[in-house]
């Protein structure tokens, strides 16, 4: 067990592409850190640099306090699980799991014992003599896990290990990976593009975009206090509704197109920095789960035309249109269930749409004009120029700048 520290790590490829820019991150002893971001954001490159499979252009990687920039993968005491499992097809399950131990010249009896124990833990005991080709996807994934676990490394590195599994198995394996990591207490760096996976598994989640670390925080904090528009749009499913709006000169309400949402004293007090935006434009973010069918007299309510209903059993997703313009989200191939078009013109006055997650019993029909109550206390405000969240700090400060589009 060990900590992993990345200190201003940069990766520049020979063709000049800067895949990772000054990423600093510390993974605590026994912590499960998830790296998440859209395709091409540099998350796998970071992982490969920790593994020693990619040269580090600048900065330092330390494992257990030792600088490993020039240490070969086999001497870093790490174990990696790959997206396509990378099992040796000519070996049986037992040989695959025990191969790393055999290479370390452990006595055969000890190797066999460890392989048996690992297989038992992963429910693979009856498949030990099979070849990978004779296993299902889930079983292969477990063998890959077993190969990593059996060596008792200081750090586990996981590169989207669940991406090739079907949805149901993915949910099952997600829990299993977390359970194993907690049981073994080994530090883990886990890469995924699926924000649900990141939120459910990570002790902390690091969000990357364009090779730049945007925010690293506990899942709940990422959800409740995203540092910028990208993190806000990426975390959460369905994605946050983001609109161009403007604060009234008194600062007591925000206008979205022709509509107005009142901001209570409590909301304003929680965001002192908002006062600086009186009479100015802001980006307003509302999560679908913070929108519900309005009751008469609701202060913060939006009017919208219902366009589509998605019944999920326990709840209902309501897609509605309104006349507020979309806010632009850089690199917004959002985590999952994203509802906003990428790179929509921020100055557009065309009507936008929103998604509300309401109770399945809500009586609502496609085509009708409905009133939606917004939980104003859970609204998010962002600076339209810097994309940074507006909370209690000086506008636009304390965060990570968005990479150039």
């Amino acid at each position, binding site marked *: 067990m060990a900590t992993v520290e990345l200190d201003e790590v940069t990766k520049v490829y020979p063709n000049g592409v800067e895949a990772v820019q000054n990423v600093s991150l510390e993974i605590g002893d026994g912590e499960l850190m998830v790296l998440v971001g859209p395709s091409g954001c540099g998350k796998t490159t970071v992982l490969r640099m920790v593994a*020693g499979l990619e040269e580090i252009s600048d900065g330092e990687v330390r494992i257990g306090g030792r600088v490993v920039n020039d240490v070969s993968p086999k001497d870093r005491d790490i174990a990696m699980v790959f997206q396509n499992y990378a099992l040796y097809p000519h070996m049986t399950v037992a040989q695959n799991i025990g191969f*790393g131990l055999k290479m370390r010249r452990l006595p055969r009896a000890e190797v066999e014992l460890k392989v048996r124990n690992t297989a038992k833990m992963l429910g693979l005991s009856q498949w030990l003599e099979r070849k990978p080709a004779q296993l299902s996807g889930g079983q292969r994934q477990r063998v890959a896990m077993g190969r990593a676990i059996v060596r008792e490394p200081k750090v586990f590195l996981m590169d989207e290990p669940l991406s090739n599994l079907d949805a149901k198995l993915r949910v099952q394996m997600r829990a299993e990976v977390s359970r194993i990591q907690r049981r073994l207490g080994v530090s883990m760096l886990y890469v995924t593009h699926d924000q649900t996976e990141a939120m459910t598994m990570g002790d902390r989640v690091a969000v990357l975009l364009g090779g730049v670390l945007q925010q690293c925080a506990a899942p709940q904090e990422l959800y409740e206090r995203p540092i910028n528009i990208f993190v806000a749009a990426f975390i959460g499913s369905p994605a946050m509704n983001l609109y161009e709006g403007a604060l009234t000169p008194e600062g007591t309400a925000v206008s979205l197109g022709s509509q107005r949402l009142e901001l209570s004293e409590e909301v304003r007090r929680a965001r002192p920095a908002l006062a600086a935006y009186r009479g100015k434009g802001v980006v307003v973010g509302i999560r679908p789960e913070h929108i519900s069918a309005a009751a008469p007299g609701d202060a913060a309510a939006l009017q919208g035309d219902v366009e589509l209903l998605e019944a999920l059993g326990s709840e209902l997703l309501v897609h509605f249109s309104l006349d507020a313009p979309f806010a632009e989200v850089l690199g917004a191939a959002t985590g999952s269930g994203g509802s906003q078009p990428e790179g929509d013109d921020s100055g557009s006055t065309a009507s936008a749409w929103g998604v509300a997650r309401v109770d399945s019993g809500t009586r609502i029909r496609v085509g009708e004009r409905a009133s939606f109550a917004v939980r104003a206390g859970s609204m998010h405000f962002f600076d339209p120029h810097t994309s940074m969240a507006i909370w209690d700090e000086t506008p636009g400060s304390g965060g990570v700048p968005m990479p150039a589009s």
Partner: protein
Amino acid sequence: MTLQGESAATRPGIELGGRAGARRRGGPTLGRRLRRDPGAVIMFLVLVVVCIVMLYPFAFMIINSLRTETQYLNGSGFSTSSWSGLFSALPVGSELLNSTLICAGSIAIILIGSSAAGFAFAKLHYRRQNVVFLGIIGSMMIPVQSIIIPEYVNLSNVGLVNNYLAPILVYSALGMPFATFLMTVFFRGLPDELIEAALCDGFGYVGVFWRIAVRMAAPALATVTVLQFIQIWDDLLVALLLLQEPANRTITVGLGVLSSGRAVSIPALMAGSLISALPAIIVYLIFQRYLISGLTMGVSR
């Protein structure tokens, strides 16, 4: 690499049941297919003709090797005298041994060299890699006839003429470019993650090459072996020039000498050709199950 879909059929508890399953297991009978598909009839007839064209020389060789000169001219009767004549005219055993030694030596060098080079071209990255690769591929276009004289002079200068090493080195050099190309294509098809997993498991690149890559390269290695064996075993020019002592001759050179004598015995020549062809057929039959996958590798992933 095995496709995901293959695993379902071998997974316990999953069986292809009913008539559909039976059809999938065995397929329709040949007769039923021919009745249903006129294209298949034409294809079947073409294949029969091709088979006859391919097998006729073998049948001719076998039948006439079992005749005397007179029986051959009359076209009837059988005798084994041509076989005894062959063994008294040629040191068949030692010539077969010479051919085997030269083939084995050349193929060993080609397999080691081409697999190592193929792995390096496919999985290691270094400057000017493509230029070197193109150079090697380009050398496939040089015909052996154009370089055999300088080769002879060089080998003669270092005293290797009439030494087994001379043809072994020449055959290795001639076979290496195509074998390297084939091995590079194969290793390019191996997922990088497999190599990286082995690196994390505790290997250096040499270990990855030897313990992982080579073990998985059986189809490619078998393909190289078969193709090179047939080429080297059947070659006359190099062996004739570089192994001039009668004791060093290969079987092909021996047969060449036999056929260039004043009184050529066709039945004895047929018997010799049969003996000469047999090893190549045996090698082909042993490795044929790998040959198709070896030749089509890289076509799809």
